[in-house]
């Protein structure tokens, strides 16, 4: 029996805007194995960030969680369900930044310009533990060094705008890890960075995960990154999960037409000399914009498509 740290079931989120009601998430469900890297892939607008924000409970109006459960089984305390936590439940504040923390896409704007880097990293500690300022700053400095920021005595008193994008993302990572969360959510942490810096940040996240042993939910639209980093893959499309499996299963032997299309659209993998594939909404016999329930297969993977179209489907 696999040890599951986070279990998402039937998650549904609506956005009520002037244009109308958008179902951003419809019946999203997946498990995160403890101590492993789970990746969520999908095109822009498929609901990856909304899913992450639900786990942190930082969905802001006009968005609203309209259904589903997120069962969280931390090692340090009793399991609890996240969606039903009351606004004043102390576990909510503990969850954010303490048990689960998050690295965002935009390092240039993710830090307040008017406080020093040290202030903002130390604050994460002060929010969750009863320690003095000095101790918090000391631990902040240690974590900043650990994510690769040198000359720390000087840099810790600098402001975010004095840092490059890659350095800022390191600061955000330090801020996320400084309380030793059990889950680190990375929402496209390298999308806004230069290619060379991207690789450094990915290596950093992977190395720190090996050292600290936390679970990672890694959100990306880049299949290449998934192959490099993840143990398990969740493929999302239009607010739904279309396929779940191990990296090997999903990348080597994709089952859902959308996943196949996604892989065919990668420049490196497509045959040379041919135009890159685009993903149409109808692939083969399957209209992928139509929701089908997830079906579990004997090899552990899950896929959302008509049962008769699943190759070699048993049951």
């Amino acid at each position, binding site marked *: 029996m696999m040890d599951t740290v986070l279990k998402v079931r039937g998650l549904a989120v609506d956005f009520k805007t002037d244009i109308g009601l958008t179902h951003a998430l419809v019946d999203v469900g997946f498990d995160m194995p403890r101590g492993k890297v789970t990746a969520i892939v999908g095109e822009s607008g498929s609901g990856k960030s909304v899913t992450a924000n639900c786990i*942190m409970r*930082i969905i*802001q109006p006009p968005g609203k969680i309209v259904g589903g459960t997120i069962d969280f089984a931390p090692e340090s305390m009793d399991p609890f369900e996240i969606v039903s936590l009351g606004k004043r439940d102390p576990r909510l*504040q*503990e*969850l*954010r*930044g*303490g048990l689960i*923390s*998050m690295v*965002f896409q*935009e390092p240039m*704007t*993710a*830090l*307040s*310009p*008017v*406080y020093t880097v040290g202030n*903002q990293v130390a*604050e*994460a500690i002060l*929010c*969750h533990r009863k320690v003095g300022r000095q101790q918090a700053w000391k631990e902040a400095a240690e974590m900043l060094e650990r994510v690769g920021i040198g000359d720390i005595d000087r840099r810790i008193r600098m*402001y975010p*705008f*004095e840092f490059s994008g890659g350095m800022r993302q390191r600061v*955000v990572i330090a*801020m*996320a890890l400084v309380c030793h969360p059990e889950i680190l959510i990375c929402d496209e942490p390298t999308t806004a960075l230069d290619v060379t810096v991207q690789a450094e940040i990915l290596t950093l996240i992977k190395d720190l995960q090996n050292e600290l042993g936390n679970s990672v939910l890694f959100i990306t639209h880049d299949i290449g990154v998934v192959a490099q980093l993840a143990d398990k893959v969740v493929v999302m499309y239009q607010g739904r999960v279309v396929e779940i499996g191990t990296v090997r299963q999903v990348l080597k032997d994709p089952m859902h037409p959308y996943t196949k299309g996604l892989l065919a659209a990668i420049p490196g993998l497509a045959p040379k000399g041919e135009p890159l594939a685009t993903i149409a909404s109808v692939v083969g016999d399957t209209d992928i914009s139509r929701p089908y329930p997830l079906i579990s297969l004997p090899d552990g993977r899950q896929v959302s498509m008509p049962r008769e179209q699943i190759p070699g489907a048993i049951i």
Partner: protein
Amino acid sequence: MRSYLISRLLGMIPTLAVISVIVFVVIQLPPGDIVTSTLDRLQAQGVDATEEYVQNLRARYNLDKPLVLQYFYWAGNLLTGDMGYSHLYSRPVNELLWERLGYTLSITVSALMFMWIVALPLGIYSAIRQYSIGDYIMTSVALVGVATPPFLVALVFMHIGFEWFGVSTGGLFSPEYEDAPWSLGRVADLLAHIWLPMIIVGLGSAAFTMRILRANLLDELNKPYVVTARAKGVGPAKLILKYPVRIAINPFISTIGFVLPSLISGEAIVSLVMGLPTIGPLLLTALLNQDMFLAGSLLMWLAILTVVGILLSDILLAWLDPRIRYE
């Protein structure tokens, strides 16, 4: 930072010098001078001044010297703190100003505090509860507050006070304390009177500040750095105050510098309407009566306080916002 400060301070000198020339020219513009107006007054009293007396008077005010020299005498006196003589009040300008400075300061500063105490919480509430009933009510009240001239508000208050409650709300003292020496009772009387001008002077700017604060805050509320802070577990109240509010109020704190010139020119009409012994009406009467020494000194002070106020604003802004400080 230090070299910036020094260069800014040095830069003030030519600015003020140019302004002083302009002010001096303005003083000289109307026909006649303090001597002719003194002679007029004497004549009206039936006294004929001797030629010698006139010469003495001219010599005393350096009016027998060329204009350029007169300017330097005037400017030199200003530099030593002597602002000349008001013939309208027949008293040195220094005395007139000192007497009114205390009241002016207390009304201006208390109005400023009133503005912040009202505008800060209401502006924040209005932004984080955007489109709530409370927000709509405050928006309506604020629009009326911004659109109504303060002297009108003053008149309305005074009318209501007089008609409904039978109290005279003008002035800073009750008649029995008007000319009394300072005592505990007089201080209490001052406090009992000052709240009304404080509200009237502060109301418009409070409404205005609240609206701008709301708009600034709405821009900041969903910025990524706020989301980051929320995701790291900062509690709701601290989150709002430490992150978006801190940035949204920057432009306001920097306007504190503008309070300085308003000590002289601010709300002159309200003070006139309410009979407040502040500096504002002094400037108005000086200009109306061509009391040119008084007017000139006040204009010069207005210029100095404006320049110093702007410098103060810039320093405050640099102190508040590291992005500016490090440029």
